[in-house]
Each structure stands twice: as C-alpha cells, then as structure tokens.
C-alpha cells in the first residue's frame, strides 16, 4: 500500500531524514514514533505530497507521489496535527468542499456525512462557522472530511491530540474498521500506550534515522513500548526486525 524507500529530506544543508524505508501493507495500523523534531511530520508531509524530497521514492499502491501525485492523493486522506481548516466555511461546506475535490457522489457523501457526523456528535454543529469551533471540533471535522471519500490509506499526524476520550475511542474504532475493509493506516504519535495497543506495526525514528521497525510485539519484545522507546533513545543501534 505505502512503500517508502531510502527516503531522505534536506532543509538547506541540514539532513532532517536520512535513508528511511518503511513498508505499510493493507490491514496494517502502523505507528510512527519519535521524539519532537525527529522527522515524523517531515516524513508524513512528504508521503502526502506536501513536501518535495531529494532522495528515495514514495509509492502508494505502486504509484509514485512525485510522478503521479493526483492518483496517489485520491487514494489517501491526511489529517494534520493541528487542523487549520477554512474558518470562513461552515463544517458542512468544508466537508462538501473536500468531497467535491475527491469527486464523491451526492448520495454517498450524504450518507457518510450523516453517519460520521452522528458518530462524532458533530451533526448539529456542522451548520456553524468553523471559526466558532473548538480545537477538538475542528479535529473531528477534519476526521469526517477525511472519511467522506473512504480512503484506502489514512495518514494521521498526532491524531489523538485535542480529542476527548469519547472521540478518541471512536477514532480507534474507525481505524479498526478501515483496516478490516482492506485499508491501511500510518500515523505518528507520542502516546506510547495507544501505539502499543492499537498498532500491529511500529517504526521508531530518532534524529531523522529509523532505529527500529517491524511487528510491534517483535520490536518491543517482552518490555513495554515505553521502556523500549526510552532504551532506544539512548542506544542508536538499528533494531530492524524485518
């Protein structure tokens, strides 16, 4: 589904991600873990076509994000860590705008907006301007707009920040539903407990380099993910279990 091969990214002369390779298969909930400034968001933004990059390749279902960006983007949805949405639109208008860009039919979008709006308890708020929303409401609107076109691949950057416990629970449920339908999820997080319970695969990045990746159980071994993460933060040896 998502293949990142030898990906490197520079900001000026500074190398922020170096030779990173990750493979996300259908059915995977893939957690991308690292400290602040490790290169998680840079990698995610390159995957979704926001950042250009110098070396390596990123493909979605065999299509290169560099060569065929429109085809790639049609297959995925991206939710950033801080959802800056168009504040002058209402929630309904914004979701419909995204649905238009993804060419979702009227019937399908109506059904999905109703379903996810109800699920996230947003239906009654969607007529209001986004500028009047709280952070959590914006986050939920961004999630609904991401789900309205049923993406094969969901890319999320710190998705649980700002969500209340119920919305967090619902998002986790939807993530499971998405992968059970043959989709895949790649998301960054700082919440190690969530990653440990939710992800079947994880990758740990430190200073732009991948230091561990593979099946969650194999990567962390008998330790908790938190203990393992703290250990690898101090020890840079490559622990790729693939």
């Amino acid at each position, binding site marked *: 589904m998502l293949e990142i091969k030898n990906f490197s990214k520079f900001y000026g002369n500074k190398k922020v991600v170096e030779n990173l390779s990750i493979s996300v298969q259908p059915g995977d909930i893939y957690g991308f873990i690292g400290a602040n400034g490790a290169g998680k968001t840079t990698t995610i933004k390159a995957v979704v076509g*926001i950042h250009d990059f110098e070396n390596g390749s990123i493909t979605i279902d065999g299509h290169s994000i560099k060569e065929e960006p429109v085809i790639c983007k049609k297959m995925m949805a991206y939710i*950033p860590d801080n959802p*800056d949405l168009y504040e002058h*639109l209402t929630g309904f208008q914004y979701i419909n*705008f995204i649905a*238009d860009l993804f060419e*979702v039919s009227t019937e399908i979008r109506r059904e999905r907006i109703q379903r996810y709006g109800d699920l996230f308890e947003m239906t009654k708020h969607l007529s209001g*301007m986004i500028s009047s929303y709280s952070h959590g409401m914006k986050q939920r609107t961004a999630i609904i707009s991401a789900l309205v076109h049923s993406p094969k691949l969901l890319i999320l950057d710190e998705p649980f920040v700002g969500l209340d416990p119920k919305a967090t629970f619902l998002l986790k449920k939807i993530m499971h539903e998405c992968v059970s339908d043959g989709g895949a999820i790649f998301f960054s997080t700082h919440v190690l407990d969530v990653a440990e319970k939710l992800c079947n695969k994880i990758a740990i990045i430190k200073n732009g380099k991948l230091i561990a990746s593979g099946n969650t159980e194999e990567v962390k071994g008998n330790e908790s993910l938190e203990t393992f993460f703290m250990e690898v933060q101090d020890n840079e040896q490559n622990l790729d279990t693939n």
Partner: protein
Amino acid sequence: MSKIWILIRVQLMNFFPINEMKEPGNKKQSSIVITSFGIITLAIFFFVYNIITAKTLVQVGQQELIPAYMVSVSSFAILFLTIFYSNGILFGSRDMENLLSLPVKSSDIICSKFMFMYLLNFLIGLMFMLPGGIVWVLNGSLNVLQIILYFTSMIFVPLIPMCIAACMGIIIVVASSFFKRKNVIALIFSFAMIGIIGYIAVSAMKSGNENSIGIMLSKQITGLYPLSKLFMEYYNFPMHIGVGLFIVLSIVFFYIFAKMVSLKYGLLNTLAKTTTRYSDNKNSNSRTSVFFALYKKEMGLFLNSYMAVLNAGFGVICLCVFSIFFLFNSLQQIGEYSGIENINEYLSNFAPICIASMFVLSCPAAFSISLEGKNVWILQSSPIRVKTILNSKIAVNLTLHLIGYIISVFIVLVKLDMDIIQTVSLIIVPICYSIFITVIGISLNKKFPNFEWESEMMIVKQSMPVIVSSIIGMTVLVIPILLHWFLHFPIVPTLLGVALILLVIAGGVYIKTCRLNF
C-alpha cells in the same frame, strides 16, 4: 520603554526578513532582492517626482510654500494609506493573544504596534519631506533654526494622520461588531470613509479659484491638511513658532490617543477578532465540479478577508464610482471641468487604458496563494492539478474585474460617440490587461508564496508579488502612452498592439506557471 523596544524589535524581525537575509543559501533571498528592488524603484520615483514638484514651486516664485505643501501632501498620503492597513496592524493580528497573555501593559502593546506602523509611515513621509526640504533649503534665504525645525518636524509629521486613520479604524471595528455580517459592514464603512477623504481632497483642489497663484496654492494646501498652515510664514506668526507648535501638537495628540486606546485595547481587540456569527442552515450536499468547488471556496476566502477586499477591491470600486459619475454628468460638463476641448475624442481614445489602470490596481491573484496561509495543506494534500487551483484563483480575479468591466464599458459605449476601431479597443484592451495582470500576479505569488504571515496586511499590501506586479502593471500602462506622446504613435492602434502582446506574454507565463508544483 525597554518592553516597547523589545516588542518593536520582534515585529521588525518578523516583518522584514532579517534572519533570512543573514542565513546563507536561504531560498527567500531572491524574493527579498526583487522586493527590495521594487521598493527602491518606487522610492526613487517618488523622490524625483517631489524634487520636480518643489522645483516647480520655486519657478513660480512660491518656494516659501514648499514646507507646507510637503507636509500637507505627505500627511494626506499617510492618512489615506494608513486606513488600508491600520486595523491589520493594531487589532486582530495573530500574535495578539500571545502578547495579551504576557506581563506587558496594554499601552506598551499599542505603542509598539503604533510605532511599528509609524516606521513604515515615516519612510513614506520621508519620500516627500526630504526632497522638498533639500530644494527648499537650496532656494531660500533661511536661518539655521528654520532648517533644524523643518527636518525635526519630519519625525512628527506621520503622528497626527496616523492617529486620525487609527481612530477611523476603531470606529469601523466598533460599529461593524454590532452586525451579524461584520466584514461586509466594515468594508462599507471603510469605503465610505475613503470616499469622504477623496471628497475632501477634491474640494481642496477646487477651493483655490483665486487670481493670485500664491493665495490659490496656499488655500489648496491648507484645504487638504489644515495643520500645514503652521508651516507658512506670517508677519505676526513666524514659521519657527508654527513648526514648534506643530511638533508639540503631534506629541500631545499621539499621547492622548495611546492612553485612550490602551484603556479599552483588550475590548477593541476582542471585537476585531470576534468572528462572524453567521451560520448556514441550507446544508446542500449536491456534488459540484472540482473547479467550481475551488472557485466557491476561493471567492469566500477573498470576500471574507476585510484586508483583501479593501485593498484589492479598491480599483474596481473606483472604476464603478467613476463610471456612475460619468453616466450622470454631461460630456460638456466633464470637458469644462477637466479643461479638455474635444472630450469625446479624448475619452474615446483613452477610456480603454483608464479602465485597464483600475484593473491593475485590483489584483487579488497576486496574494491569493499566500492567503491560503496555514490552510495550504488542504490543497497540497488534495488530488487536484496545479492548473485547476490556479484557474480557480484566476477566475476570482477575473470575476472581480468583470463587474467593473461590464459597468464601465456599457456606460462608455452609451455616453461616447466612438468609431469602430475605438469600440474594438474599448472592448479588447481592458480584457487583455485584466488577463495579463492576473496571470503575472498569480505566477509571481506561485513562485514567491508566503504562508507564514501574522496579519493578512503583510501579504495583501507589502508582499513581493503584490509590489512587483503593481510595478509591472504600471509599466505596461505607461508604455503605450509614452509611445504616443514621445514617438507620436497613433494611440488606439498602439493600445491594441500592446494589449495583444500582453495577451501572448500572459499565455506563455500561464503555461510555465502551471508546470510548477504546488
């Protein structure tokens, strides 16, 4: 005082790309060089223009009016320009919430914001006062005190017009906050105030209908800005006392303004930041095309930005106002008023370029990509071709122009007796200029976007694409006129020829811009 300085320093570092200039190999450096070139070109133009104006006053024996003239014109320019951006700087900028949470007095914040705005206006004032002052000093028998006071007064000239403009801004903020569609109301108030200022300027120009050129000029100057009277010499009231009084008045006026505003600064800022209470219960889920969805979004983004409509809508609104004025006044009246003998022929020849000049003033495409700001991730991560995004932004610009175009061309066609080639020129030339300036604006913004702005004012008024596209626009407006004046090219065919060349250039630039990644 030290806190005010710290706040000003941060604003300057944020506004002027000081750190980017220092950083070797920074991508923004080419954009900074082009912007600097554009600003320096404009500054030189104004400097030379004001030297010529001052020298003309010397030639007609009115050199003693130079200080009053320069104070009057620069104050008026500062007042007019400040209305367009005072609210963007003083209230509602993104850094305000952070600043209000810091242990800094409101008066320090308002002073720092005001002083930042002052620095920009001081440079505008300098472009008038310095060249005028040089010509005045070189052509008058002056004492040292007069010279020192004149050059000292340059520091104080921006204060009063800025305070007046800021007060107008406050009235707009407070008055519009009572309405549900506060943005629309704020725009109506703003344009009404600009209209009032324009009316005062026109009235001042008409007031000097005297036999003596000296009396006529002094009436015009003081009509435009009454305080400029303090820069005139009287037998019982020497100029140095007047200038001294002007400096004291400016300081007192500014002090009272800062104190009064700081008392209610939090409230004013909240009113400016309060988002519209508008909600839309007509929740249509109908599918539309990608282009139309982007166009609708783009139009909403533009119309919801007070700064964008105020600045980029100005040219088209002026065009509509002038056209309506033209409709309700007879050709004879306009001819008498303007002093042009064959007004029908004159306007038939120059109407296309007049309409085009208003389009050059209205180019939202030049900041439309930057206006996405932090929302740009939505377009970047969506499955849309760059061409479709650019087309939607171009379409909004052309829609704006279309409103002015239909009204003005229709009125000109009704009022003037034109031959076929003049009619063709009237129809084709504005369209070509409109397309050209829109494409140049969007391509410059595509090449040099700025998504990290704190206030829309930064991209709408002072960004590199806006400045450079304005200079390019003015240049292509002047070219056919210069060819007509100096090389005696027939104006109508020249206009048509230049317009068609611009259309070809626009086509080439458009194709090249569509190839760039978003």
